[in-house]
């Protein structure tokens, strides 16, 4: 049989799943154990519904323009995944990730990274979402100001998951990388011993 070369995370995880399911299971478990504390801490950074600015709080009617803030949704939207993701535009894939997937949570997370959007007013033409069409010129700036400062981490700036990642100080990443490395080494060791047969 021709020798098999594992290239990239997808190949590794596929090979682990097919030939050494025990290693794959162990890897998922260890990744979960490494990322779970970060997620928990990040959820703790999400303010309660009463703490958020009044205009962003949930209301009985929806204008269907801007997602309102609901602490429960934001908290449940902060999670982690241990499966290999799709390649990004540069062709990179990740073994695991922490995600802030709710709309309001995302806004709370990264609003102000670039700065307030340029104000064009409600009467301006176009359909771009990268401009502020608020009646008040200082609305965007005030919104960002009310959210509090962004926290820098090695993965980027943010208020929830990035803040937690920064607070974790690389402990989670170290554990995750160690787990991936161990799984890869174990797999290669087994493959070197003899031909691997596909697990049922």
């Amino acid at each position, binding site marked *: *049989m*021709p*020798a098999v070369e594992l*290239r*990239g*995370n*997808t*190949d590794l995880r596929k090979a682990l799943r097919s030939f050494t399911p025990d290693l794959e299971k162990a890897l998922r478990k260890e*990744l979960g154990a490494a*990322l779970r504390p970060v997620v928990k801490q990040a959820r703790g950074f999400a303010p309660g519904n009463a703490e958020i600015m009044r205009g962003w709080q949930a209301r009985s009617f929806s204008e269907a323009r801007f997602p309102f803030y609901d602490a429960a949704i934001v908290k449940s939207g902060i999670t982690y995944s241990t499966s290999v*993701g799709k*390649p990004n535009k*540069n*062709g*990179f*894939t*990740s*073994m*695991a*990730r*922490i*995600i*802030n*997937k709710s709309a309001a949570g*995302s806004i709370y*997370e*990264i609003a102000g990274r670039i700065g307030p959007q340029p104000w064009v007013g409600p009467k301006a033409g176009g359909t771009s979402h990268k401009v502020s069409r608020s009646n008040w010129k200082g609305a965007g700036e005030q919104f960002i100001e009310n959210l509090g400062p962004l926290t820098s981490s090695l*993965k*980027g700036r*943010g208020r929830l*998951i*990035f803040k937690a*990642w920064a607070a974790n100080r690389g402990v*989670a*990443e170290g554990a*995750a*990388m160690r787990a*991936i490395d161990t799984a890869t080494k174990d797999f290669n060791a087994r493959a070197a011993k003899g031909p691997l047969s596909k697990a049922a």
Partner: protein
Amino acid sequence: MALPEINIGSKFDAKGFKQAETATQKLTKNVKSLAGAFGIAFGARAIVQFGKDSLKAFVADDNAARSLGITLKNLGLEYGTTATGVNNFISNLEKQTGVLDDELRPAMDRLLRATGSVYKAQKLLNLALDISAGTGKDLTTVTQGLQKAYLGNNASLGRLGVGLSKAELTASSFEQIQTRLTTLFAGQASSAADSYAGQMNKLTVATNNAKEAIGLGLITALTEAGGANGFAGATSEVEKFGGVIRDLIVDLGRLFKFFAAVPTIFELATDPVAAIKNYNRVYDQLEALKKKDVLASNGSYVGSTGFGRNEQNKMAAAAEAKKLAADKKVAALQLAAQKKSAAAILAAQKKAEAAQKNSDQTKLASYQFDLKQITIAAALKNTYDQDTKLRLLAMQAIEKDQGQAALDYLKQLGILQSAVQTDKLKGIEGISNASLHAINMELLAELQSIEASKMSEKAKDEAKMAAYAKYNDAITKQGELMSLGYYDERTQVELTYIAKRAALDNYGSAQATLTKIALSADMAAIDEVSLAQALADESRTNSMIAYIALIDEAKYAAFDLAAATAAAASEQAYAITALAQANADAQALADAANAASIIAAAEAAAAAAAIIAAIPPVVPGADIPGTGGATIPGIDVPDYGGALSGINLNPNRANDAYSAPVININSGPLLGSEETIAAAVQLALQSLNRQGSNTSYAGAI
């Protein structure tokens, strides 16, 4: 909107890029190859040839795929998507290794048939590709070698030059060889595929696949053109079209010829006769050609200037008659050939039968000089023993090549032997009634024939002696004669007759025969006597047992009586004692009770003693229950070896009124064990038997 996320363990995954790159490269190559294939010469001929090749490639590929599918079905492996999976596997392998599926499919088919497992076949095909790449042998040869090796013929692998010695191939199992080969040829196929030649092969594969795809397209197009009838309809239409074109071309040619023959105005003006002659000649030629066409199509075609319907019918009838005549002729020829063949077979059979007859006669004649046959025949003549006879007959049949007869004799022998064994199990050791009857009859018949012959007296005597000797030998071999009474009346009469004959010829073997029969008769007499004796002994034993039983009964009755008397006395004493105690004059009453008790005890003891004294004690020294330690007195036999002083062995004359003998045993102090008494009684009975009773004793009456 990209959601905020933190990625861990990110790595560049070039797989997608590689795939895209490979796909682009493949596409470029295929397009180039296709362009090359089309660009040989942009003539129609080349394109038609390509179309033909495409169809051929598609048909071959389709056939191989179908064959593989049928193999899977026949092996019971066609379930789910197995067939698709196998085809995909081959397609992938073809692309990876550059080996055409035209080779891979038959190879897979062969391995599937050998292993009966898709998984094993795939594994072996991979190995075969590696070996093929490593050794340079073609895939078919390698696959055949592996197939044979899987089925146990490892030698075929040796011829492939795989680097395994003959000893290794012989000593190792297929699994071991497979593992070794996998190690030896690992990566050969992939390496070969990556080489320049491999790339070229891949190009060929791509071209071939393109051809197959185009062939499929052509078939599909033709099928669609056939309308509702599908591909069959298309072919039919193509055939029709061809026919029409053919006719058109022929007609056009003739038309041109006809036009050329039509005289022009110039010809009519210059040489009208020649022009018209020429026209008529050409016209006649064309008509003749049309007639020929009609005849060729058997009257199915009516040209504009051809024959009428009647004429056509006539011609058809003539053709039919001609055909019938030809068929008849062929049938007659076939019949003649069959008859000839049958006659030849019959002649051959007759010849074979004659040869067989001749051979049998020759054999028969040769028996006359065959020493073995002569010996067997002589031995047969010299024995009456059935066992020996059957053996000899079987041997004779074998010598004569009569297998069935030999088997029959051996079967009879088996039956006879089992009968003998059964008799032995029953305790019959001597010759059986049936066997004796058989040899009796043989002896008597032979004696009769000797008597009836015209031999000299001396020769007769010798022949008789030989017959008696055979008779004696047969009896001896079968375990000698048993007591005469064992045999039935018929056999006994035969024996008596033989004994009489033997007595008349009382010398040599005849004497021995007579002795045997006499011995048998004596045994019968002894048997009778012993039987009578046994009956008498049994009768006496029974009498003695009955007598002993009677004595036992009397003894136990005495015990019971003594016990009852003692109990009654005890009760009486108890009552008196109680009364005395109750009474004021207790002392007097007590004395009286005491006295009464003493008297009663004395009376009871006296009564018991009297009864015991009247009964002959049988078990000396034994306790009498309820008597406070009293024992049964024994018999005193001072001198047992001589006359019994204590026992009167003479019959009691005072009891002459009874016919049975009476033994009186004197009372008194009898000492001795029970065995002693039994021995004494037995002695008395034996004496009585020897001397007889008063009715049988000589001189008593």
